[in-house]
């Protein structure tokens, strides 16, 4: 997994978040060399943008492995479990 860390496109959202968290934590540790920290910062900003884009563009994917889903109700149909509760 560490090998793919540099290829941001290949990273899953979670890996991206973890990587970002790692970058921020190392920046916050204050133990980085200035040049190193600037690199990390640039990388972090890029990663942050990529993650934001990923969130904005996320569309639910549903894969039906067993059975067949009935006709999907309209989204404005009220959540049945909520209405009954």
């Amino acid at each position: 997994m560490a090998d793919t860390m540099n290829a941001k496109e290949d990273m899953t959202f979670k890996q991206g978040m973890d990587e970002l968290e790692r970058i921020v934590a190392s920046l916050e540790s204050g133990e980085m060399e200035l040049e190193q920290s600037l690199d990390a910062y640039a990388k972090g900003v890029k990663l942050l943008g990529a993650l934001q884009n990923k969130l904005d563009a996320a569309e639910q994917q549903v894969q039906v492995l067993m059975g067949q889903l009935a006709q999907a109700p309209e989204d404005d149909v009220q959540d049945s479990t909520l209405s009954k509760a």
Partner: protein
Amino acid sequence: MAAEASKPLSVGAALQLAKRQLEGIAVRIVGEVSELSNKPGYAAVYFTLKDGKENASLPCLMWMNRFKQAGVAFKVGDVLDVTGRFSLYAAKGRMNFEVASLALAGEGDIRLRIANLAKKLEAEGLMRAEAKRALPRLPERIGLVTSPRGAAVYDVLRTLRRRYPCAEVLVAGVPVEGKDAPLHLMAGLDEVCAAGAEVVLLVRGGGSFEDLMPFNDEALARHIAAMTVPVVTGIGHEPDTSIADMVADVRASTPTAAAEAVAPDIRDIQQALHGTGRRMGFAESALISQCANQLMQVRTTPLFTDPLSLMRDEAQMLDDLARRLESAIPDSLKESQQGLSRARMALVAKGQTLIAGPAMDVLRARTTLRSVGPSLIRPKRERASVMAAALEGLSPLGVLARGYAAAFTEEGRVISSIHAVSAGERMDVHVSDGTIACVVSHVTEDEPQGGEERAEWQIR
């Protein structure tokens, strides 16, 4: 009684009389639900129990708080086992059966079996808090095992889409009711796991106690406990608790709540991302200002502000040494000087003793010389006078005075032979009172017999 009957009562009083009598009768009744009215806002649930065989029906009510406490959902056609007492609603003159507790008929045995199963599984440790697995923070794949029909599957999908569209949902649509439902549910769990689900939702919508029975299956419970990924249940509604719920890693009250439990809210994530971005900015600027501070600190160190201070100690040491040197040198010099003058005095003394002897010798010699000198010189001087008188006689001047002349070449050499000059040359002839400058006209050699030497000079 007869006497009393002759005395009329008011309606209210009569009903009060009946009410007192009726409310004393507490009974347990089994009957089939024929009508049901359960509306929000009502103080009680109203239903009718009937007995088909005896063609009898009884209007029942159960106060809402008790109904909710009992947590038994039932519908028209269900056979209920109710306990309560009769009551009279005076305003309508209507008799009711006020239900204190109820259960689906025959359910008692089943509930007991379920309770025993729960105890057994609990004793085996299947419900221990330590056995519960933590849910993944940001799941990539969420498994969903439920009926493909009905509201529950869409409640879950909608909730997941709203909260966390990033995850892929793997749906196993399986029958959730009936005798074989547990087997289908287990197959569904395996299927979504095999497809890579990191967490599985096991849900179904609300239903009767019997409807939810598959979720009390022992094999399913053990299957859930043995799953490699966490299982979140959302079965039925709030009060329903199944064995599956008990052994699940997280138990949610409804399918929607289950979906909410596995999926982080995308807004929270976005907010967290914002926060992370800010933290990153803070951290980096803190790092930069830290570096700037360090630079400032270095710049304000004595090295840069007062470089000389670095050598202050050394300078002081140097001064100290100089002082010590100064105080040390004159002493030695004095010593040397004293030595030197002592040496000079010794030298002088020595020199004088060295000179004294020879000086005396010189003095003595000089005295001797002074006394001896004149006696040595006297005879010589007398002889010299004699010699001088003799020399007087030999002087050429004397000869010249007698009429002789001496001839000299231009260079001043005495001419004693004719070969000394040649014709045309100049010569000087010295006589007693001066010199006659002459030019040679010619020379003549004398006869070898010794005749008189002849020279003919022409006066210039």
